[in-house]
């Protein structure tokens, strides 16, 4: 008998190594991103030091680059977006899972999917021509926040829906058996169970809102140095500045823009990681008991 075990073994091991290499590309790409971009941000950080993060003066001809206003703008518009999106997303998720007649569920899920897939540039186009011009909302933190809210609602809704659906039926039925109305059942059984997952979903939406470039760039107003709590004022965000000023930037200016990108990267990663940890923990807990 010919012993084929050796050859087969080689093929099997080879496959394992190929799969491993594929998985490792994630590490390679991330490592490269971190390395190349940090390397190119060094010039401006050497020049500005910590002032890069604390100063809001951004004057390219003078080599003064302070990103505080853009960091503020990114966080502010993302917060506005979340404030608008969370009640709406929760409402939709609860409706789909608890209150909707069965024939309505699938079309609504499709609707959320379609909203998720509309390209951000089309939202930006609509926002710039229709929302800000036609309806006279102008370009401001608020307009940007509204567009971002529309864009993150699908993410929050889908994730919240997943978490809510893991609520044990026994809990829900117990509440109903005790005479609770639908809303009371939701408050008593669904929400406490899903709280963690919903928080995680919201933070993922926050992360996405912070990283959105094009839609924000078209409607945020592109003001420099604007740190104000007034949502009707024009502002700016880190990705919008990068997209807008890259074309004409000289070496130092480019370094500043890359430093902005790194800052944005770090902030969104922190938010995303915290969110994922919270979601995973709550899902694990719910499945366990």
């Amino acid at each position, binding site marked *: 008998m010919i012993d084929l075990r050796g050859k087969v073994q080689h093929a099997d091991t080879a496959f394992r190594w190929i799969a491993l290499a594929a998985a490792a590309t994630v590490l390679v790409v991330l490592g490269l991103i971190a390395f190349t971009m940090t390397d190119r941000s060094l010039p401006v950080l050497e020049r500005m030091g910590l002032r890069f993060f604390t100063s809001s*003066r*951004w*004057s*390219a*001809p*003078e080599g*003064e680059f302070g990103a505080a*206003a853009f960091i503020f703008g990114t966080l502010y518009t993302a917060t506005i977006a979340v404030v608008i999106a969370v009640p709406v997303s929760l409402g939709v998720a609860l409706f789909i899972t608890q209150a909707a007649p069965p024939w309505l569920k699938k079309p609504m899920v499709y609707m959320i999917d379609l909203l998720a897939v509309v390209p951000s540039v089309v939202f930006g186009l609509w926002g710039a021509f229709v929302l800000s*011009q036609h309806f006279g909302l102008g*370009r401001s933190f608020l307009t940007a926040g509204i567009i971002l809210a529309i864009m993150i609602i699908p993410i929050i809704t889908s994730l919240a829906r997943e978490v809510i659906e893991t609520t044990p039926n026994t809990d829900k039925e117990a509440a109903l058996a005790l005479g609770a109305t639908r809303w009371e059942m939701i408050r008593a059984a669904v929400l406490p169970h899903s709280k963690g997952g919903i928080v995680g979903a919201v933070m993922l939406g926050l992360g996405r809102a912070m990283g959105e470039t094009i839609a924000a*760039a*078209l409607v945020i*107003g*592109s*003001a*420099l*140095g*604007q740190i*104000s709590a007034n949502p009707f*004022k*024009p502002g700016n965000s880190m990705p*919008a500045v990068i997209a*807008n*000023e*890259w*074309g*004409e*930037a*000289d*070496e130092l*200016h*480019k370094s500043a823009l890359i430093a902005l990108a790194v800052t944005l990267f770090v902030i969104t990663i922190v938010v995303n990681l915290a969110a994922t940890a919270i979601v995973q923990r709550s899902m694990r807990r719910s499945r366990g008991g």
Partner: protein
Amino acid sequence: MATHITTPWLIATMAALGLTTACGKKPEESKATGGSGGTTTTTPGGPVTLNASGATFQKAFQEVATEAFTKISSGTKINYSGGGSGKGRQDFADQVVDFACTDAPYKDADAAKVKGGEFFYIPNVLGAITVSYHADVDKLQLSAPTLAKIFQREIKKWNDPAIAADNPGAKLPATDIVVVHRSDGSGTTENFTKYLDLASAGAWKLKSGSTVEWSPDTQAGNGNGGVAQIVKSTAGAIGYVDLSDAKASGLPYAAIKNQNGKYVEPTAAATSAAGDGIEVKDNLIFSALDAKGDAAYPITAQSWCLIYAKQTDKTKGTALKAYFRYLVTDGQKLLPEIDFAPIPNSLQDKAVAQIDKVQVP
């Protein structure tokens, strides 16, 4: 197992995607719009594509010139992707493009980093930057110091005494001024601010650059078109827009006081007049801003295209030289239609001489 059901569907989906890609590959002749007659020659050396980037200021010129040039030299494709003067200079220095156009020359430090060796500046267009506005004022007149103070938010109302001084006898409304500038980095911004630096006798404090530190209570638009859009839709707005986009948007623009004390509107004649009074250096660098001459429009900007002195590719080099020569000779006739002005004849001759110096293998 689901394999026997899914496989046909999978094949169908892939086939559909493949078909759409294949259908998309069918190239069609581009629609012939407008057009010069003239003999069509095929590009010597065969079909060639030239990639370029750079100043959006001259994008319109590049577009019409490309269209016209392709008719007389079929087989040459030119992709001018704009992206800004800074991008153009960077791409040219990194040799990522075949040529680039810029509204401002390299800074000395950056010029040293150009990888391809010696290169030439070939000027090819002059254009007016208008000060467009949206207010109930007929034939607005503005001087540079007033302009500087407006754009710095020191003057906030249309009936300010400084504006009244520039417009004796005119009735000015009491509305607020809304300043509009560029959100994206721009050679137009650079030239506009450079003009304010030169001509406002110290009133302008924000220095000059592709982006400057505008006050937070101003508005910003993306591209000339973006600024024009905002000015058009905001009462009391004032912004700097190139003549082409200002005219396309139907915006009124101001007459600006030039060095000789005359208030001049940005007409084609006035732009050319600005070109007549310039001092040109040997490498063809000059500035048309704040030009001398009674009829000169003071906010006239210039733009160059960059070409390497030693070309490495024969086909591309030949095509480049032919295109550049076209830009500064016959191509100049296309400028008035798109609201730009040709460079003065003396400068054209110098430009052609410079192009002739380019060596092709």
